[in-house]
């Protein structure tokens, strides 16, 4: 099933099996390659950008998607339908992609089914890892073979073979400040690990998980985006009740769930664009509780 890769230090989790192909293919790296930095498919334009002129440690690339109005692409867990974009990378020896850093998604209701994804413009940052002692060549090309599914009420797959060649040309160098701002803005929306002081727990009761997240202050808004597939019924409304020191969410279980998991893992999006990865240990509900529901 799904292989989940969590880079805790970076606060990055990726459903690797479904989400992305990480390949480093030195043999395929062609300095001065002829691929284009931009590509497109129906309703989607995509480009490969970088956050600096001179490659080095900490470098990020970005896959920037521009979508027609009403169209969306997907987060690492796509929700009820669809699938996340995938990228197969080509690098010179010693360089590789360390994975997509997924910004917190939106909940997108399509005729009663719910997808997790992105509208309008989204940049997916990709960290570049350098092998110890790797020498970065003077001239090289990074290639990204990108595939995606875009949906509005209909779905259309797309693909593009993108390439970014270093050194950047003059026009590209003029754009790097803008690219860096876009990559940094996307990274600021990547969920962070929940602070150590937070406490998250989940009570299993019948068809529902009741998740309490104690953050230390009242949280008026919250949306839970499951990081594991088939734990939560994506299309069910999430009932959110602020607590004096956090928030409670009632989440319907997925009909594909046959046994309670030990842990519910997901991204909790709160007001003000805050998003955190939470892990709530699941316990069987043992006492009566009253749920105060807020209008949804």
């Amino acid at each position, binding site marked *: 099933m799904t292989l989940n890769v969590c880079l805790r230090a970076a606060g990055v989790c990726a459903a690797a099996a479904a989400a992305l192909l990480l390949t480093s293919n030195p043999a395929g790296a062609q300095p001065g390659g002829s691929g284009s930095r931009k590509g497109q498919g129906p309703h989607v334009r995509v480009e490969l950008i970088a956050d600096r002129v001179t490659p080095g440690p900490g470098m990020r690339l970005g896959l920037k998607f521009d979508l027609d109005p009403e169209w969306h692409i997907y987060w690492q867990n796509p929700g009820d339908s669809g699938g996340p974009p995938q990228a197969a990378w080509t690098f010179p020896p010693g360089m590789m992609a360390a994975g997509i850093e997924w910004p917190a998604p939106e909940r997108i209701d399509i005729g009663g089914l719910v997808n997790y994804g992105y509208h309008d413009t989204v940049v997916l940052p990709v960290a570049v890892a350098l092998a110890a002692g790797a020498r970065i060549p003077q001239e090289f090309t990074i290639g990204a073979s990108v595939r995606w599914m875009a949906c509005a*009420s209909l779905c259309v797959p797309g693909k593009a073979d993108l390439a970014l060649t270093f050194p950047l040309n003059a026009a590209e160098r003029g754009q790097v400040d803008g690219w860096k701002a876009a990559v940094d803005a996307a990274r600021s929306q990547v969920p962070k690990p929940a602070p150590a002081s937070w406490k998250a727990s989940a009570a299993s*009761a019948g068809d529902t998980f009741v998740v309490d997240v104690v953050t230390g202050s009242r949280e008026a808004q919250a949306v839970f985006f499951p990081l594991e597939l088939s734990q939560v019924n994506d299309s069910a409304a999430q009932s959110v009740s602020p607590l004096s020191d956090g928030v409670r969410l009632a989440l319907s279980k997925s009909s594909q769930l*046959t046994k309670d998991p030990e842990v519910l893992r997901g991204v909790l999006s709160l007001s003000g664009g805050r998003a955190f990865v939470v892990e709530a240990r699941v316990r069987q509900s043992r006492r009566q509780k009253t749920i105060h529901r807020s209008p949804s």
Partner: protein
Amino acid sequence: MKKTMFVAAALAIAAAAAPITTHASRVGAPAPDFKGTDSKGQVRNLSDFKGKWVVLEWHNEGCPYVRKHYGGNNMQKLQQEWTAKGVVWLTVLSSADGQQGYMEPAQANAYFAQKHAAPTAILLDPSGEIGRLYDAKTTPHMFVINPDGVLVYNGAIDDKPTSDQADLATASNYVSTALTQGMAGKAITTATSRPYGCGIKYAK
């Protein structure tokens, strides 16, 4: 949603052991009976097929994920293989009138004939009644029901959640595995998986 309205009640009655209970399309539970009309105008009830293995396949001809399986002749081969072994294969169209995947009976018959598809019947469900009864989410979303009428598989068609035909060659087919294991009296190793595909275009 109905389920969340019962949260308080469900918690109140939840005892020390709280099994997963009331979902209509839970594996291990009786598959919900339905009454539908097929593309030949015949009324089909699930209960008509008691004593037989039944496969439900949700379909939308315009969906890239469905096209992967029909363009690659994968779904047709499965239909031929399993109906030859006595399995009842019901292809269900739950797209609403005016939505992608909706078909009139004559159109459905012509289309599936042209695709050399071999389901037992094509159920036309534009009201979405059968789809919602099973909580079907995607095309293709697959269900397997055993001869006792118990749901034994609910999920994806295979383990490659893409729209790329090239992935068929390396995919492990959950429906075939469930039928093979179930008909041999063995436990079904993968009884659920996340269904993948396009969201079903239900009536609003």
